[in-house]
């Protein structure tokens, strides 16, 4: 009797494990962000993106790499609807961004946390106020702000510097504050445009570790960068853009396709 019951429990546990694995698989394959044959030509005639097609799944971590002017930032701008695609479609969760009107843009952006190279913190506000500000603009109740901001600051390790102004912080700390602001409203997507461009290698790795942690708790993270050592050390999905076209899409990729080509690795 005992053995039968034990087998039953084992079967149930197996079924549950299989079910969970299947769900996870489905989740992995259902894309959250889609670029469908996207072209972007600026009014001055520059074509920044040319027929870009890319799918990014929920909870994925993607590096978008390429030289300056290759089109990385334009890809992110299209996602934020800061720019409109001149051809093709950009979709988030199946929703064509072209369908979102001018008034809908703020609500789209509330679902996307953003981190910039130059941090873009408000100089006149403390670290705490900078993070709280992102909640205030979405009309969050004060009691939620009081609860969530300390949580976000502790996540990025800035609890003790909450009352300091951005000018009193190091670059790495400022970027951590910006990261806390980006995630404070629990956005499903986090976009970082050269987040380590102004940081030393140690601070850069700190930020990357945090981005990875945020990805670990369920956020889809898209990082545009041209910092080789970071991409190479993280071994995540790498999408390489050159002259507005995707030239490589690689799981667990490096910054450069052929390591042997790179004199740094010889």
């Amino acid at each position, binding site marked *: 009797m005992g053995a039968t019951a034990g087998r039953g429990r084992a079967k149930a546990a197996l079924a549950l494990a299989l079910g969970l694995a299947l769900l996870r698989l489905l989740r992995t394959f259902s894309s959250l962000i889609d670029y469908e044959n996207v072209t972007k030509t600026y009014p001055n005639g520059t074509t920044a993106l040319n027929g870009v097609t890319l799918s990014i799944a929920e909870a994925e971590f993607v590096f978008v790499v390429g030289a300056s002017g290759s089109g990385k930032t334009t890809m992110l701008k299209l996602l934020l609807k800061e720019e409109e695609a001149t051809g093709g479609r950009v979709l988030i969760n199946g929703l064509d961004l072209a369908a979102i009107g001018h008034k809908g843009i703020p*609500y789209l*952006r*509330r679902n996307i946390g953003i981190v910039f190279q130059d941090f*873009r913190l408000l100089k006149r506000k403390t670290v705490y106020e900078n993070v709280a500000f*992102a909640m*205030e*603009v*979405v*009309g969050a109740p004060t009691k939620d702000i009081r609860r969530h901001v300390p949580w976000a600051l502790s996540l990025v390790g800035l609890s003790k510097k909450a009352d300091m102004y951005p000018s009193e912080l190091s670059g790495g700390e400022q970027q951590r504050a910006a990261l806390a602001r980006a995630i404070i409203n629990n956005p499903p997507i986090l976009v970082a445009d050269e987040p380590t461009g102004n940081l030393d290698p140690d601070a850069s790795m700190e930020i990357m570790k945090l981005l990875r942690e945020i990805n670990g708790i369920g956020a889809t993270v898209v990082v545009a960068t041209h910092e080789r050592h970071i991409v190479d050390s993280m071994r995540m999905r790498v999408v390489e853009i050159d002259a507005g076209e995707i030239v490589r899409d690689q799981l667990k990729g490096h910054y450069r396709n052929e390591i042997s080509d790179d004199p740094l690795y010889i």
Partner: protein
Amino acid sequence: MKFQTIRYIFREGFLYFFRNKLMGLASCAIITAALIILGVFALLLSNIDTNLRLLGEKPQIRIYCRYDLDDADVFALEDEIRAEPGIREFEFIAKDEAFLRAKELLGEDAGMLDGLGPDFLPVSFIVRLDEPDMVEAFVQKVAAMGAVEKVDYPKRAIDFIAGISGWVKAFGFAIACIPMLFAVFIISNTIRIAVFERNSEIGIMRYIGATEQLIRWPFVVEGVLIGALGALVAYFLTGFGYSIVEGSFNSGVAAISGDFVSLAPIGSVSAQLLALDLLFGVFIGAIGSAQAIQKHLRA
């Protein structure tokens, strides 16, 4: 709009106002100047209107009899005048009474009349009619009566005030409009500078999902505060100035003219003046700032 959002807008609006002190005060001064001009014209027009209405309501006609009439003639004339239609009040001023009034009017200088008796003054009647329109015809008819020496009525004053009232109204409005437009322009520029200074802040707000309302309204609150402050200063300065002018006018001109023309006491016009200043100040502030931020958001 959520309560949190409204609180945020007001808090930020006040912060913007205090942060932008120098430009804010300069704009306040411009608004104050514009509203003082508006207030002065409004008070002037209001007083002209009030005095005209009072004059129109009870034009006082003074009929002087000829000196050589005896009592019987006077009574006959009185009966003749009283027979006219539309008389509301009729007052008989005998020679004695006219003499007393003259003494009273001269006050300290009454000594001039020593040695003179009431006989040198004519008998007169003071008549008030029901309708101001009837004055002209009535005066003509009475003046033609043989026993009447002279008829006095405030024709010239009425005509003069009615005459200037029209152009004072038109020019007052035009002259008050120019500084108002100027004030809107100045406020708009002040807010534009404020918006420009906060350009990066606005950019960050846009990235973190702030609606245009949330970006726009604190600036409008700032503009309204500038306008309201300018209005209060204008109100106190205009009110203070008016009370001085009113005091000396009423003890001077009005007393001489026997309260024929007088300025309304400050107490009776201050509420309207405050309402006018606040209304226009807030309006100028709101329009100026809304226009500045709108241009920026569209860009």
